[in-house]
């Protein structure tokens, strides 16, 4: 995933938007296939049955997929969302996003085994690093502080026991 394939030129962005149409089409197909599998004998007490809504929604998804594809091929473009901190003049910066996702995934893998205090520290520290902060020690202390504070805050304040993991005896 190099930056060139990304929203660099209008033309390439147009083609990539067809991916959304494909996603919608796939979602519609999945919903319809799943609906066809539902056995729904007619019953007086439930004439609509569990299949009607999935069928309607599947068709809606397929129709919007087709309409979007036509729209994009005719030159229609979705407007990227703006915001206070959003600068749309440069393309998507995968060098920031991928490490962020990495930190997120690491948290998922660690949360049960190592516990929230460790996985949360990793998550915050990794995210701050991905977003460009280079104060390693300060960031590490803040991360650990946040993870500890939420762990105890949830435990004492809300009665929610976040996983302690390998620190079970220590915390």
């Amino acid at each position: 995933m190099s930056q060139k394939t990304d929203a660099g030129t209008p033309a390439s962005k147009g083609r990539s938007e067809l991916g959304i149409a494909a996603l919608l089409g796939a979602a519609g197909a999945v919903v319809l296939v799943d609906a066809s599998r539902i056995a729904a004998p007619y019953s007086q007490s439930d004439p609509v049955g569990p299949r009607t809504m999935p069928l309607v929604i599947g068709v809606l998804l397929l129709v919007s997929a087709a309409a979007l594809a036509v729209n994009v091929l005719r030159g229609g473009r979705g407007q990227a969302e703006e915001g206070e901190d959003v600068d749309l003049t440069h393309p998507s910066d995968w060098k920031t996003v991928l490490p962020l996702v990495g930190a997120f995934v690491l948290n998922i893998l660690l949360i049960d085994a190592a516990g929230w205090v460790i996985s949360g520290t990793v998550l915050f520290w990794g995210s701050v690093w991905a977003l460009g902060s280079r104060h390693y020690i300060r960031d590490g202390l803040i991360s650990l502080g946040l993870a500890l504070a939420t762990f105890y805050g949830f435990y004492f304040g809300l009665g929610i026991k976040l996983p302690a993991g390998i620190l079970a005896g220590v915390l």
Partner: protein
Amino acid sequence: MDTLDLLMQGFSTALTPMNLLYACIGVLLGTAVGVLPGIGPAMAVALLLPVTYNLGPTSALIMFAGIYYGGMYGGSTTSILLNTPGESSTVITAIEGHKMAKAGRAAQALATAAIGSFVAGTIGTALLAVCAPFVVKFAVSLGPSSYLAIMVLGLLTVTAVLGSSKIRGFASLGLGLAIGLVGLDPVTGQQRLVFGIPLLSDGIDIVVVAVAIFAVGEALWIAAHLRRNKMETIPVGQPWMGKKDWRRSWKPWLRGTAFGFPFGAMPAGGAEVPTFLSYVTEKKLSKHPEEFGHGAIEGVAGPEAANNASAAGTLTPLLALGLPTNATAAVMLAALVQFGIQPGPLLFENEPVLVWGLIASLFIGNTLLLLINLPMAPLWAKLLQIPRPYLYAGILFFATLGAFSVNMQAFDLVLLLVLGALGFAMRRYGLPVLPLIIGLILGPRIEGQLRKSLQLSGGDVSGLFNEPVGVVVYILVVILLALPLFIRLWRKFRPQKPGAMHVEDQIHA
């Protein structure tokens, strides 16, 4: 004076120390998220949903309402001082407000916005207290077929009327409805979209979806496009207004309120149209039309009032019908459902303490907001200097924590990431997120009403049209959907375009 009695009881609920505390937390948090870039009231309420399980519904909703109103105040501070409105409803405020700030009148712009918001919020809340019981009285007599029609209207208007692209709106709606299908069918217990994964058979928690779409998707999207150059914030002192500013502000406040409330109360009203209408009206009526575009105080006072009044208006269909019309209202409805409360017209009858406590707390919250925003605006503006890595890492951190604490399942975090990626893609390709959330929340309720209606009629399709209200609503739906077609035909035969259609021209003229 039934309403007044109920409202007084509401005040006695809202003024208990605990609820007052939650109202305070709500307005403080709300102002903060309104000021902070990249985080809005809908995201804040979604993030807090899991944490509020133990609070009890009344306290939680009082806090959420504080966040909702507070977000409006904070949002106007940002748009005046930074000129990059975070939400579409403050776009108009930014036009004149930022010009005023640049001309050294930031204090007056902030003051007229805050006081105007207070006036509009108070009048709007009073209108809510008066109107909602009438809507309820009318709505309790309706059967499932009319409800079905009203919900379909709400769903379609949010999808087709708001946003710039109908196709993308319906695509988003379809995705939301599909996510709402996942799990066991409530009537027959059949599995739908479960794919043999036992963890999916309970359905996907609305909290997880809301947090994923609003928080994770937004944080990833901003991270991908983070502004490198620092934005310039205009330094500001204590907000204040002179006599002349008061004279020029009070009428726009009232007119803005008159625009805002009814639009907010309509299924697809939103805040964009009334703020724009208010701006155009003030420009027409102003004695200083030449100042517009260079920082006219009326252009801040009117739209800000319209914005806040529409927020109050939005709560009318939410409380009286269980029909959310914007993102924050949708998440608040999800909160009601999480607490096991059945939204709809019976809410006023079944939960009078909650409803009237909530309405009373809106009056209190609005007053608190004026008190904390007027003297402390410079302090709030300092929030804009928070280092962005901490802000967005924090959003991801709390999103993870919130979604995880619902069921304590790492699997929910996988869903959070997948749906967050969806939220990212939707932002990049201009799919609005509101239809997805509304579809997710209303989809299962629409299906329920549909099945109930046809069950009552024994499968006869005429059962869907057996109440006049339902039929009228369906006619409205057809008109709304066909309207753009008519306008296109009209334009074809009448090539000269009506001037009022040109938003941009009006603003920049």
